[in-house]
């Protein structure tokens, strides 16, 4: 394409944006609303994910040792387990320490333990895991190996919790794409309709351009660029609105989580995610206009 063609296409895009300003603004606005909903969901997912990952860090594996394992043997077990790739640290909890921890957890109700044998609780090893090994499958593998060790009586980990967390994150991921799919379809159709309107409005002009020898690319390019601009403008507007909503609502978003969110920090979408949303808007605008142009400018 010659430089003169580039200038020509740019001029036609500018003219169309001027002449059909309200139609283009309305489309960019609807596009922005669509991407705002999707971006909002992305924001929620990101923060819930962080919250859940925070909870995940609290997941420890408890290895109860046989009653006949003395402290030296338990230390041997601890050192062995610390060599496992999943284990960040292993802490030995003696029977006495376990008793004290239990009492302290009961607080003012610790009196109910009066008269009970302070050595009734087994000694244990508390395993802290690395970030990448907190999934149910990774923990199950570790548990299997640990349970087979001599001197280990029982291994416990919050399996039900892990399953719930996994389902929650998976559900959110699925919901994101289902919701996204519906919203993208809406945005796609809206951009397509606007481009169709622009084509119909300039039908005579297009015919004249064809008669004076304009190639298909030269005729189609302005409409496709309009779609790109609409998509990009809609995405930028959605990001702006999302940022504003995030600033205004702030900590209120954490309220539904109550004490579960204690200490949690809300974060906005990172640069990469903002870029993704912009690219998504641009792609939707482009795809909607390309389809419309192919259909109505045959």
């Amino acid at each position, binding site marked *: 394409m*010659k*430089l*003169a*063609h580039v*200038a*020509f296409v740019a001029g036609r895009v500018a003219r169309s944006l001027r*002449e059909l300003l309200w139609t283009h603004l309305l489309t960019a606005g609807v596009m922005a609303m669509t991407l705002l909903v999707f971006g909002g969901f992305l924001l929620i997912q990101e923060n819930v994910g962080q919250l859940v990952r925070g909870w995940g860090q609290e997941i420890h594996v408890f290895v109860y040792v046989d009653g006949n394992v003395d402290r030296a043997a338990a230390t041997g077990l601890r050192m062995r387990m610390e060599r496992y790739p999943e284990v960040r640290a292993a802490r030995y909890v003696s029977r006495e320490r376990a008793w004290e921890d239990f009492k302290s957890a009961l607080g003012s109700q610790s009196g109910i333990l009066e008269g009970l044998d302070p050595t009734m609780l087994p000694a244990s090893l508390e395993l802290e895991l690395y970030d990448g090994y907190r999934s149910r499958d990774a923990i199950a593998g570790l548990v299997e190996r640990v349970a087979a060790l001599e001197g280990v009586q029982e291994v416990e980990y919050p399996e039900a919790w892990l399953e719930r967390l996994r389902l929650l994150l998976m559900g959110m991921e699925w919901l994101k794409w289902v919701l996204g799919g519906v919203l993208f379809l809406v945005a796609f159709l809206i951009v397509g309709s606007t481009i169709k309107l622009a084509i119909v409005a300039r039908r*005579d*002009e297009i*015919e*004249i*351009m*064809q*008669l*004076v*020898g*304009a*190639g*298909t690319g*030269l005729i189609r390019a302005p409409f496709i660029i309009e779609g790109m601009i609409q998509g990009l403008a809609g995405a930028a507007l959605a990001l702006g609105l999302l940022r504003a909503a995030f600033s205004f609502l702030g900590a209120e978003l954490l309220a539904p989580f109550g004490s579960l969110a204690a200490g949690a920090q809300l974060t906005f979408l990172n640069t990469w995610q903002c870029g993704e949303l912009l690219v998504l808007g641009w792609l939707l605008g482009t795809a909607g206009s390309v389809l419309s142009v192919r259909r109505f400018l045959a």
Partner: protein
Amino acid sequence: MSMIQLHSVSKVYPPDYAGVKDVTFQVEAGEFLFLCGPSGAGKTTLLRLLFRSEQASEGQILVDGRNVTRLKGAGLAAYRRKLGLVFQDFKLIPHMTALENVSLAADVVGVPWRQSRRRGFRLLSELGLKDKYGVLPPALSGGEQQRVAIARALVNEPEIVLADEPTGNLDPERAAESLRLFARINEEGTTVLIATHDPRLLRSFDGRVLLMHQGRLLRREDLEPAASAT
């Protein structure tokens, strides 16, 4: 060398109306000829077949040795860039100024903006529209619009000019001026084919005239009575 060749070209509209019937003729490169006949004779249809706004039902059209009968897409666009077209209904874009309308044809072939405006302005000046270059077509008279359409057809210095009733809305003085312009570009080597039903245009013309009647090209033996009728 023949610039345009038509071989047994027909155009039939459904269900069975023949706009053009079995037309065969040739136009030499650099020739200036008129296609005459009353309204409904098939002149416009024949021109539309030539610039491929319509597709022939039968026959073959060769332009500069190339079969254009079934041209499509990029090939059709490239072919049309060789042509300068003047339409009976002008086909001007109403929201573009006279100069922009003229320059449009140059813009689409990639002529730089400044150069295409300069060419357009020169042609508008030659056609007496120097002061109307910034006016929108709806504010121009029929004759002025027609001259803008002529200027647009000539702006790319095309190899062939196909003009449908290019003087239909012009007073005799302006019509003569436009014809002089066509004659001048013909002298520069451009092939010119003008369709008209106006016999006045032929009075001072000594070139070839093709006569059409009811979709057919009249044969040589038909010419004398037909010519005398005009």
